[in-house]
């Protein structure tokens, strides 16, 4: 590969990286937001309440993300009713389809992480909170969830890195993310390996930066501890 060809692809890949990061940021935030009610319902003692998140998690963890993405993007467009409804302006856009699918997908994984963390909150703390007269929802809001969030942070960070890598599939629905840009470049320069390796370097750089940001956050939330608690998700 000539240096010219290499230097020419860098700005294109960089703009692809921006789209990748936008998708990642959106799905990490929305996914977390969706995961909280899912996790709460999942730990519920009422079987019918925990059945909904169980089914949801079963589906999203048991099928490939690519199938989920095609179901949302190509699948929903099959129906006249969907195409004429108010959601179509959103579903029409490949970006929103990817953002929605990624959010739903990652929410399933994050909710399992949160469930693990909620169940790991020491019983004594909950009993103590009840003993000083806190109501059930107060216990959740002031004791269990803040504790669980802190414990879940390392695994949540892990999930964000996994989503970064999974987001490469956005390229299969016309999005010009990092991988989509690399595919288009390689279809013009006929140097697929060199192009994909360069794109890979971008992903590694993003992973490196994200890992450090997450570590910084962990330390910030655990001022009393040097090593954060590790939870195996």
């Amino acid at each position, binding site marked *: 590969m000539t240096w010219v060809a290499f230097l020419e692809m860098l700005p294109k890949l960089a703009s692809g990286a921006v789209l990748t990061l936008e998708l990642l940021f959106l799905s990490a935030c929305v996914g977390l937001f969706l995961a909280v009610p899912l996790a709460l319902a999942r730990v519920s003692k009422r079987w019918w309440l925990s059945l909904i998140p169980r089914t949801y998690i079963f*589906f999203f963890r048991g*099928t490939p993300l*690519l*199938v989920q993405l095609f*179901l949302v993007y190509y699948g929903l467009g099959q129906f006249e009713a969907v195409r004429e409804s108010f959601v179509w302006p959103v579903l029409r856009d490949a970006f929103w389809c990817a953002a929605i699918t990624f959010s739903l997908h990652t929410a399933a994984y994050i909710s399992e992480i949160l469930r693990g963390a909620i169940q790991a909150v020491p019983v004594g703390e909950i009993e103590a909170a009840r003993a000083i007269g806190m109501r059930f929802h107060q216990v959740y809001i002031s004791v269990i969830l803040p504790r669980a969030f802190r414990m879940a942070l390392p695994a949540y960070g892990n999930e964000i890195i996994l989503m970064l890598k*999974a987001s490469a599939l956005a390229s*299969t629905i016309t999005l010009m993310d990092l991988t989509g840009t690399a595919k288009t470049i390689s279809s013009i320069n006929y140097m*697929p390996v060199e192009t994909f390796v360069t794109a890979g370097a971008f*992903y590694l750089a993003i992973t490196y930066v994200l890992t450090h940001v997450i570590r910084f956050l962990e330390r910030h939330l655990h001022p009393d501890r040097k090593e954060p608690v590790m939870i195996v998700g």
Partner: protein
Amino acid sequence: MIDLQGFGALLFAGTQVTLQLALAALVVGLILGLLGATAKLSEHAPVRLLGNGYSTLVRGLPEFLVVLTFYFGATDILMAVASTLFGYDGYIEVSAFAAGTTALGFIFGAYASELFRGAIISIPGGQAEAARALGMTKRQTFFRITLPQVWRIALPGLGNLFMILMKDTALISVVGLEELMRVTAFAVGRTKEPFTLYLTAAVIYLLLTSIASLGLRYLEKRAALGVREALS
């Protein structure tokens, strides 16, 4: 019932390829994982660097990108290796199945090497010392003492990886292998019913992962049985 418009047989054939691909990649991945773990625990710094580099790099890359690179690069790499090592300058054919198996095995191996490394160091050093004292060679110690226990300790983690591997087989559709996802896309092109067909594919994947998780539970139970017996 869902009307598959005559594509049911094609989907079934695709499912078989998906299964073959997953199992072949599992074997490649287990071998690479063990090699990677041994490299990470090596006494020689360059070998350790190689082992750590492999797992760190691959785990930081999108699986999809690794698959694309392997598909387009496998022939180049193999030909370069054949030419430098064996002086063979002919052309080497890499089928979509072989490229897919290698790519997925390569990814699986990177994660598995971490699991195996953890499992190996969790086995008390005294056991290896005892084996050596009994006159076993290093190799015998590894295969007779360490490896059987590593299997048990790493099994739950490996099971997780296998589930991920099974879903990652869908990525191989991009390299032209006619696994489930690819044949579904063909059928969508002919019937214009993407929702029905992709949902059918999703259900098949769910079945596969469910069966695999049942199988794993069985394997884990068997592995745990051995432990209780050994302790009693």
